[in-house]
């Protein structure tokens, strides 16, 4: 079955913990309604939610853009925020600069970026200190047949 590309975007506000997850939830419903394999949807939900939370926790504002094609789910998160001075260090499991009050909420385990990478087929992190951060998540949609 063929379908047209689907794209859209959500605005994210840093510090808005009440609505945190709304963008990822909406994207998950879209993917589910398209009939995409639940395992693929699960991986997309984990990666996009962690990316969304990083904007809420660490940045001032951002946009989550998605493009669903025949073969892939591509999600790009672009934020205005402090940026990441040392990307390798940030990618290390357990590394977090989250303050105590965030940790008390159960965030700040330093697992977000590694989890995003694990659940993506392609993962890209770019950042400019003092400007912002861009995360690109690509997940292949494998249909039943193998080619």
């Amino acid at each position: 079955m063929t379908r047209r590309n689907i794209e859209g975007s959500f605005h994210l506000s840093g510090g808005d913990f009440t609505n945190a997850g709304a963008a990822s939830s909406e994207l998950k419903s879209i993917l589910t309604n398209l009939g995409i394999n639940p395992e693929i949807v699960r991986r997309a939900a984990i990666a996009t939610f962690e990316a969304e939370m990083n904007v809420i926790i660490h940045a001032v504002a951002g946009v989550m853009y998605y493009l669903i094609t025949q073969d892939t789910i591509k999600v790009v998160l672009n934020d205005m925020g402090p940026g990441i001075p040392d990307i390798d260090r940030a990618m290390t499991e357990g590394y977090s600069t989250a303050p105590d009050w965030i940790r008390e909420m159960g965030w700040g385990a330093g697992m977000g970026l590694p989890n995003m990478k694990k659940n993506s087929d392609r993962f890209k992190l770019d950042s400019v200190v003092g400007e912002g951060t861009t995360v690109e998540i690509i997940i292949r949609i494998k249909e039943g047949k193998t080619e």
Partner: protein
Amino acid sequence: MNVQEIVDALSLEVKTAKGDLSRTVTGCYISDLLSDVMANAKEGEIWITLQTHPNVVAVASLKNLGGIIVTNRRSPEAETLQKAENEGVVIAVSPLSTFEVGGMLYKMLRC
């Protein structure tokens, strides 16, 4: 086993989504770290936690968990309950500790 049977056996107080208690529970995951739950909890598992803020609902809903048990007599925030009700996520509370609730559930789900 479904959520209702767990609620009865553990005398939990159900706070939200009372219409969704027939859902099958496939296991249990215990953690207060949300990224850990995102990474390691599995669909259908019931989640025991001390966390009470609205993000627990997003986690449970995105991971399709069987429900949330909040332990140690903690009360979920009003916003959390509202969100859970809207999204059909069961939140039940217990005065017992995570150890006690987890221990009882371990027996029910493993033996």
